């Protein structure tokens, strides 16, 4: 019997996923590194939450602001855009990634831009902006240290707030040395200083600064940036043109509603009370301003978001991109950030990546979770990540559906073939069988009878060479019960690493039927007796 009825083709997203996960698991030093990274992050996260007194109340407040904003997003978008323009900025609504890329590339061409500096922006990654800017002939430099290192390495961000969290010092030294053209010492301070020298030069000579937006305040048209390295300020004040690329859901109604978000974002994201910088940018440079760009463009990106609005997935837009769900996710740690094959990693990536435009073939991501709920507990915005994963799974299993409430793009496109479908047909058959048995006690009993009848047969297979024999192998377990060491088919995915107990000689139901009754019939009323 084959292990898999349909082995995935070599270069499907699923095959890449499996390859990355397997490589991460096999890399023990990386495993330990990520394990330690999470332990440290979780420690700071807990400290920063205990410090608040009642963190749950703050989470409620964040969730309330986010839900309210999403419920009235059209109104706040109009207000925000009007206020950006009133302050002298330009606003562009991009329906998809291509429109957004084109707009920014156009600005770059029009301004004759040769050097672009970028402050970390997930949306710019999402829409693939760097390549579009490079195509105009401009040189693009990420200025967040982690993002800069990842860019030099040609890698996707590993984590929402820490793009290079997986890299250890020797690798970083190698990357930065190559960029600097000199042999740098394996010393964090020296490495940071070298990067700072390069970046300083880029800031001073850049013609265009690109940033994201942590929040947009609708009442004043202000873009709020929360950063630690100071690169955000340089990017948004030094170059003569500043382009903000933001997801259309990033708004808050006003400054008062911004408060809980500013309180919780750094606490959840990095476990700090406050980031080093909180910048608020309203319009381009005005008369008398000491610095700031002459031109400000705000590109508001939809790219699948408006299709999520109003569906059962709306809550995913509550996310404030703190990365905390990844810091608590055991699956993230184990398979690594690159397994998501998306700019959005961790549990939020498993939900969001399959929902956004251009993410076809990511149907396996919602299944990359044990549903342990650690992410739900960690999320400052109360995004119900586990529930959303469950909904996505149901939609993937149901396949293409005219249901407007179904997952926008997870469902495999019709005719796309089996390799993109996350769900092999035999699972569906298996669960059909499950439903038949689970609703008919007799059938279940019969199945158990057969299974315990198989015990001697399974047992006789004992002793066959596990290296060559694809059939079952058995050994007596510690408690005298037999355990399965090797089994064919899907069970083998279990027995490759774990023993499996055999069905008991008699099920509980059988024991119950045989049990001596103290006069009362089995169907006696189950009322509680007093002692």
């Amino acid at each position, binding site marked *: 019997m084959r292990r898999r009825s349909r082995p995935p083709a070599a270069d499907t997203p699923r095959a890449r996923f499996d390859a990355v996960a397997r490589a991460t698991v096999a890399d023990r030093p990386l495993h330990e590194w990520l394990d330690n990274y999470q332990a440290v992050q979780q420690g700071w996260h807990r400290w920063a939450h205990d410090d608040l007194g009642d963190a749950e109340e703050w989470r409620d407040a964040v969730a309330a602001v986010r839900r309210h904003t999403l419920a009235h997003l059209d109104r706040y978008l109009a207000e925000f855009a009007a206020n950006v323009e009133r302050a002298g900025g330009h606003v562009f609504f991009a329906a998809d990634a291509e429109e957004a890329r084109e707009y920014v590339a156009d600005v770059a061409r029009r301004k004759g831009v040769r050097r672009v500096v970028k402050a970390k922006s997930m949306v710019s990654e999402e829409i693939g902006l760097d390549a579009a800017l490079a195509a105009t002939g401009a040189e693009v430099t990420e200025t967040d240290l982690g993002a800069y290192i990842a860019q030099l390495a040609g890698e996707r961000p590993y984590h929402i707030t820490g793009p290079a969290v997986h890299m250890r010092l020797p690798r970083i030294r190698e990357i930065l040395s190559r960029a600097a053209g000199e042999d740098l010492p394996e010393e964090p301070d020296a490495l940071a200083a070298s990067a700072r020298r390069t970046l300083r030069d880029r800031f001073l000579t850049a013609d265009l600064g690109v940033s994201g937006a942590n929040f947009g305040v609708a009442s004043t048209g202000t873009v709020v940036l929360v950063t630690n390295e100071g690169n955000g300020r340089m990017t948004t004040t030094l170059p003569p043109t500043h382009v903000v690329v933001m997801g259309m859901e990033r708004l808050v109604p006003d400054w008062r509603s911004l408060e809980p978000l500013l309180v919780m974002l750094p606490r959840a994201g990095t476990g700090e009370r406050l980031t080093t910088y909180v910048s608020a940018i309203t319009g381009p440079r005005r008369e008398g301003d000491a610095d700031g760009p002459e031109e400000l463009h705000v590109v508001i990106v939809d790219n699948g978001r408006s299709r999520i609005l109003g569906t059962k997935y709306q809550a995913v837009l509550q996310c404030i991109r703190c990365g905390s769900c990844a810091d608590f996710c055991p699956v993230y740690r184990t398979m690594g950030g690159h397994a998501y094959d998306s700019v959005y990693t961790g549990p939020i990536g498993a939900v969001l990546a399959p929902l956004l435009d251009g993410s076809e073939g990511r149907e396996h991501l919602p299944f990359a979770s044990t549903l342990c709920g650690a992410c739900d507990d960690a999320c400052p915005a109360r995004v119900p990540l586990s529930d959303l994963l469950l909904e996505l799974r149901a939609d993937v299993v149901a396949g293409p559906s005219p249901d407007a409430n179904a997952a926008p793009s997870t469902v495999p496109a019709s005719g796309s073939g089996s390799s993109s479908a996350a769900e092999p047909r035999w699972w569906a058959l298996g669960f059909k069988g499950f439903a038949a048995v689970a609703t008919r006690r007799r059938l279940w009993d019969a199945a158990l009878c057969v299974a315990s009848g198989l015990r001697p047969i399974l047992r006789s297979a004992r002793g066959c060479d596990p290296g060559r024999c694809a059939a079952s192998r058995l050994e007596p377990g510690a408690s005298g019960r037999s355990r399965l060491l090797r089994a064919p088919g899907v069970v083998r995915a279990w027995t490759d*690493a774990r023993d499996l107990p055999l069905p008991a000689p008699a099920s509980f139901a059988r024991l119950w039927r045989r049990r001596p009754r103290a006069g009362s019939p089995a169907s006696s009323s*189950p009322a509680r007796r007093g*002692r």
Partner: protein
Amino acid sequence: MITCLGDALYPQVGVAAVKVMEALGVEVDFPPSQVCCGQPAFNSGYREEARAAARAYLKAFAVSEHVVSISGSCAAMVRRHYPVLFEGLTEEAEARALAARTWEFSQFLTDVMDVTELPVRHKARVTFHHSCHTRRLLGVVEQPERLLGMVEGLEYVPLPRAEECCGFGGTFAVKMPVISSSLVDDKVDHVLETGADELLGLDMSCLMNIGGRLSRRGAGVRVRHLAEVLAEGWGR
């Protein structure tokens, strides 16, 4: 509520739970038509199949005053997911009512039966795995620890990183076995760190995972449901 796994693989857990509850004066019944709460199907995305199983459950326990489950995640399936599963359907009220009277075993003992002492002796160094659904979906964390504290002779060693998942995740364990196996290895490391003779828990599915890896690694730690220890040491 014996659960499919408890029926087929671990009948001794159900027997133990019945023994403990009867000793506490509870009249225990086992409606024979129950098979599975539907959780495997629900968590795998098979809503229709899950609903079919859940319907059978609603019927099986229609007249029960309380439903006690020997698995935390099955109790959580009923308490947390049945209302979602039947939302807007004719069975919704029935599902909500069943959810409200379904308990995990340790939760039933402490929160419903108000047990404050147990005539149980058990001499062993034990550690405890708080399964994720028991902890996060039911909020059952200190109940089993309270029960452990009532057992004479028992030395309880908390598990390091106790809030972390063992990597089971239902079909996840066989759909993504590489990730799952790595997670259970981490868990086994933590169990071994405690130097405990026994690992106890409230959910045989997680324990099957951790136990399966422990025995594959040749570790001698005994893996059991809390009910087994209570039943075995009762009145000693």
